């Protein structure tokens, strides 16, 4: 009997040679290597972006999805990794991305016109391999359209990046990849912050330099719009799904420490660059 089993086993292995590396090897839950996003709150919340897995970033318009993508691109290109962005509706802004610190020479930008092109381009890029991060931006495509993408497409993408160091990031309005996603983050916008010049502050002695716009709306804010600048906004992030387990053993979903988090939720701030990487020197600011 053992001889028959061994023979059978060898026949199965022979039949699957080249397709399945070790068919009888028990595949335990693997420790997933993660890479930081570059936003400390998200890194502590989700443990980073899983390599060899699919990460979904979902949320409505203006919720900070692109800011998270840009931050990830800054981080990956700073570490000399080659990245690809499949832009579903040609919405990427190279100027602001470069100002944020993205090394554009290491970014392959594919400008698509529809979801079909985006999915086929993603397929080709993943089959080609070698990228540190492949981001698929379907943010501007209606959720109804993305919902019609068959599940096996996401499954194929996941299989393509499995056992590779590639991070596959998907930006959309709603999470669609279901169990194919290793990490699902939902983002929501917090109120925007506005900055005022010193002249305004002098004019309105009761208003502090960095006061919030809602607090001064009654003071006829619109009369002073030219003395006001967008400073940034807050983004609330929530981990909807996580199968990552960082190499350092940081834990899984729910075990991350998040500053303002209750059950894996955190808030991070974004800042308008205005061409100054270190932030805006208010008194020196001149519109371009």
């Amino acid at each position, binding site marked *: 009997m053992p001889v028959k089993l061994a023979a059978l086993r060898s026949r199965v292995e022979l039949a699957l040679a080249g397709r399945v590396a070790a068919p009888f090897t028990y595949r335990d839950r693997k420790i997933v290597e993660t890479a930081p996003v*570059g936003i400390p709150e998200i890194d502590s919340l989700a443990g980073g972006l899983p390599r060899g897995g699919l990460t979904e970033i979902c949320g409505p*318009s*203006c*919720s*900070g999805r*692109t*800011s998270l993508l*840009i*931050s990830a691109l800054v981080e990956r290109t*700073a*570490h*000399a990794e*080659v990245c690809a962005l499949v832009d579903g509706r*040609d*919405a*990427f*802004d*190279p*100027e*602001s*991305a*470069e100002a*944020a*610190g993205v*090394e554009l020479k290491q*970014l*392959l*930008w*594919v*400008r*698509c*016109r529809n979801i079909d*092109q985006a999915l*086929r*381009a993603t397929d*080709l890029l993943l089959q*080609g*391999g*070698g990228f*540190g991060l492949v981001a698929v931006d379907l*943010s501007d495509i209606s959720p109804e359209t993305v919902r019609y993408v068959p599940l096996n497409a996401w499954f194929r993408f996941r299989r393509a990046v499995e056992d590779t*160091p590639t991070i596959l990031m998907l930006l959309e309005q709603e999470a669609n990849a279901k169990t194919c996603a290793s990490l699902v983050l939902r983002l929501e916008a917090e*109120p*925007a912050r*506005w900055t005022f010049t010193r002249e305004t502050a002098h004019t309105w002695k009761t208003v502090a330099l960095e006061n919030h*716009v*809602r607090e001064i709306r009654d003071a006829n*804010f*619109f009369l002073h*719009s030219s003395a*006001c*600048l*967008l400073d*940034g*906004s807050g983004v609330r992030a929530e981990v909807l799904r996580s199968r990552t387990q960082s190499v350092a053993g940081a834990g899984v979903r729910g075990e991350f420490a998040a500053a303002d988090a209750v059950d894996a939720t955190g808030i991070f*701030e*974004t*800042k*308008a660059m205005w061409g100054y990487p270190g932030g805006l020197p208010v008194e020196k600011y001149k*519109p371009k």
Partner: protein
Amino acid sequence: MAFASIYVPDFMVQSVVRGEPPLRGRAVALIQGAPPLSSVVAANEAAWLAGIELGMNKSQAADFGTVEIRPRSPAQEKAAHAALLDLGWSVSPRVEDAAPDAIILDLAGLASIFGPEEKIAAKLVEHASKLGLSANVAVASNIESALHAARGFSGITVIPPGEEARRLGCLPVSALLPSAEIMEILERWGVRNCAALAALPVLELSERLGQEGVRLHELARGARERSLTLAEPAFFFEEEMELDDSVEELEPLAFLLGRLLDQLCARLAARSLAASTIQVQFDLEPSFEKDFRLLSADSLRKDAPKTYWKTLALPVPMRDSKMLLKLLRLHLQRDPPLAPILKITMAADPARPRVAQGGLFLPASPDPEKLELTVARIANLVGEANIGSPESMDTHRPDEFRMSRFATSHGAAENRRKSAGENGRDHARRKSGAVPAIAFRVFRPSVPASVELCEGRPIRVEFRGMRGDVVAASGPWRTSGDWWREDGWQQDEWDLEIRFYYSPRLPAERSYKNGQNTKSAKALPQCGLYRFYYDSVRQSWFVRGMYD
């Protein structure tokens, strides 16, 4: 000192067979001349055995069913000769271009690199086979002996020093290429081979045949010495193919391109080079129906395109013919020739092959060859202008950039290797107190909007069917430029925080009624940060994009 001679028997036939490998091993006869006066000018051994004779016209030659009839191709002979020279330069830098079908190599000093002379000769035969040529190779201590041995003996012949006369003795006198007059005299004397000629007394031979007789006597004894006439190494790689019937479809064309690429890559490999650019010229059939469709009647007569060029610029030097064929196919799929093809000329710009040293601490990057193929495939899908690496322009014009070619070449990898440390350190410094930048998404093209103003400030907006109140505004930031051009711009930009009270995507109960929002506390209005601008040239409002 030793010399090797490489001789290609039936050179004209082999040149044609090299471009059409299925003919290998078959009886082939070449014809030349304008029909119906075309006649057989060359044939291979199998064709002679089948009964083909020189001067036969085409119809007579066609009666031999087993013999393939092909037109003589000077272009392919030129390419085959260039390949023969490449074969010589692949082994020795000192090469003489002795004849279209023969070259001579100086083997001095090569033993330490390639081994003994027999091994060098075997290597030459093997390389010739890779180039599509079946060659005879002979090694001797002097040039003429090597040349005559290669012409006279098939396969590999190595003549040790001092044995030239004995080895060449069995060759017919005609192998020494005497003039017709002397050949006739020698035949009358009964001198049939080199041994018989070498046995004649040289003084008497000189009296009867002059200096030519003395030269032939030296050649027959293998004692004639001369120096090598060096050929200048050429770095010109071109292959041509003339077609009997024009080709219109991509599939048969790809088959022919594959053959040319195989030949070109074999030549490049023989010289340890790779191609940095592949240029293909197609000679097109004139007055094809597509020309009629595309061109007006006047231009059809005068300016109808007769040639079509396609240049394949490679990010890294390559010589993988299969990969190059795939790339060329993708380019031709995207931009096919407008008429059937009559002749193909393919040239390669040579470059040193890529030598990549992987780094232990350098992140993996896409393989340049594979990446080029992937980029070409995606370019077929989205258009060539829509894939690449974005590059900022030296202008303040909004949303102005250009797409540059994306490449991860060796140089780029080196730069990445160097910059990785610096960037990493800078990045780590920045990271300590860094706040991520708010990203901007561009609407291409800009979305027309209607904006309600109050004392010059936007208070209410409508675009894409959505309506909302301006909660906060920053502006106007005036930008203008290129006023001296037709496409000059002048815009007033506004950053607006908008609270939408009507959106086609929101359910009906969320709509705004009588200035009051009727939504419950749970259904908060959708807010957004947008960049609007007033275009002074078009005198309209537009949405440039949104902060996300």
